[in-house]
């Protein structure tokens, strides 16, 4: 379980997150919605130790994550999957995946997780020795998710998994997220749009201008007029 309370994040002069509090229950899928540039990525990065400067509390079960370095947080089982993918461009798919298992916690399970990941993404298994920079956008996205899974995490923070994907790949990614959640992964993901992803959500937050402006179940979200207006244009 992750419990964020009173989180403030700063990027240079900018105060990006303002007193954000939220909870992600074990095994849940929490979706944070919000327009572009309102702090969604910063929220995920703050949890994973990748933000520039933060104050407040982020508890992973009983461990305080604020102030820990990203490598310590990965070792505790919390992994960030970037919207920008952040792959190693001149390395092969296999090397990228192996580096996903760099942290101490993942090393003993490298072979096992590699097999799991290739089961989830058979296409990556076919392209093991392809250089990452030559992959299409959709494949690169899958590789980024697969690399995140290699860390043997039990909490994934996924940044806009559907962004820039064509509809059939989007479905594939959502199905994968559903599968890994059913296998026991706790997931916090951020998206710009409601529709597809809401099916997965056990809880929804809306982040606008760095503040939480809505919190509730997916039924609450779908029936909320304000949300309809900003995300569906209704």
């Amino acid at each position, binding site marked *: 379980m992750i419990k964020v309370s009173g989180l403030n994040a700063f990027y240079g002069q900018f105060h990006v997150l303002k007193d954000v509090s939220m909870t992600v229950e074990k095994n849940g899928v929490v979706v944070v919605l919000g327009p572009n540039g309102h702090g969604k990525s910063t929220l995920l990065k703050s949890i994973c130790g990748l933000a520039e400067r933060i104050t407040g509390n982020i508890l992973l079960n009983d461990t305080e994550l604020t102030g820990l370095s990203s490598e310590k947080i990965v070792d505790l089982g919390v992994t960030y999957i970037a919207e920008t993918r*952040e792959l190693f461009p001149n*390395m092969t798919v296999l*090397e990228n995946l192996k*580096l996903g298992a760099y942290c101490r916690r993942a090393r003993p399970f490298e072979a096992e997780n590699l097999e799991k990941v290739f089961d989830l993404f058979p296409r990556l298994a076919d392209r093991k020795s392809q250089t990452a920079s030559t992959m299409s956008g959709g494949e690169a996205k899958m590789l980024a998710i697969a*690399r995140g899974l290699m*860390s043997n995490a039990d909490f994934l923070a996924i940044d806009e998994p559907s962004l820039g994907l064509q509809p059939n790949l989007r479905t594939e990614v959502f199905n994968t997220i559903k599968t890994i959640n059913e296998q026991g992964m706790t997931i916090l993901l951020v998206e710009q749009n409601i529709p597809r992803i809401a099916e997965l959500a056990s809880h929804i937050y809306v982040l606008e201008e760095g503040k939480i402006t809505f919190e509730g179940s997916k039924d609450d979200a779908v029936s909320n007029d304000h949300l309809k207006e900003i995300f569906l244009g209704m």
Partner: protein
Amino acid sequence: MFDENTILVFYEITDIIIAGLSNGSVYALMAIGMTLVYGVTKAFNFAYGDFFNMGGYFAWILIVGIGLEFGGYITVFLIVLPLLFAVGYGLETFMIAPLRKRPDWENRVMMLTLGLALFLSNLYMVLFGSRLKSLPPILEGILEIGQIVFSYQDIMIFVMSLGGILLFGWMLNNTRTGMAVRAVAQNPEGAKIVGINIKRIFASTFAISTVMVGFGGILLSQKMFINPTSGGAIMIKAWVITAFGGMGSIRGGLYAAFIIGMMEAFVGWIFGMSYTIIALFVLLLATLIIRPQGLMGKGA
């Protein structure tokens, strides 16, 4: 078949090729060390040549200064190389890393290492005097194949620096830390995401580069003198080789080093040693005009 003069010229050319190969192999070591630090940490080290001399002086202290005889150069390497690693690691951790938090840290690092270069060359002057020092050959004697004569020293220098490079290349591709070094060079943010401690990788990279150039210093100081103030010239030579090969490209550095080693040997033979530095700069100018990214560089 050939007259005597032709045969003499042939032997001379063979000698020059051997000298070019042995110098070139040390240059390769130096260029790879420099390109590594630039590729991974994006920092430029002006004191690079002074670490070359540091290797030479550490070895001189052990061999000549305290007259160490046990194990010869093996003992020297076992003591000096870890020492150089520690110096490089400490320098990155305590002096360069704190500067990285600032936006214009590249300039600050340049100023820092420039100051360090001045400090070290003057420190060497105070400690060892301005008289040049030399190291005994790692192995005495010559190997004769027909009429061609190889000195064991040249062979050893060639074998050891090439061995060092091959070992380094193997580690880069086959060890977990080597993979992490490449990962940080390609995408530092991605490296953080997978849980690589990039500060530690920066420090290790800087340390390995210090070891490489210092190792080169121990090898080459057997053929040339250790000069307390030569650090700047050595740094420039390493930099020219690196730029010629392409900043950040290890393979490019390797080719460039042998090309320049050979070029120096032949220019020295034809025009005299004082022309080698001119040839070096002509080559640098030509590179910058014709192919600014270097032999194997990827461009801006």
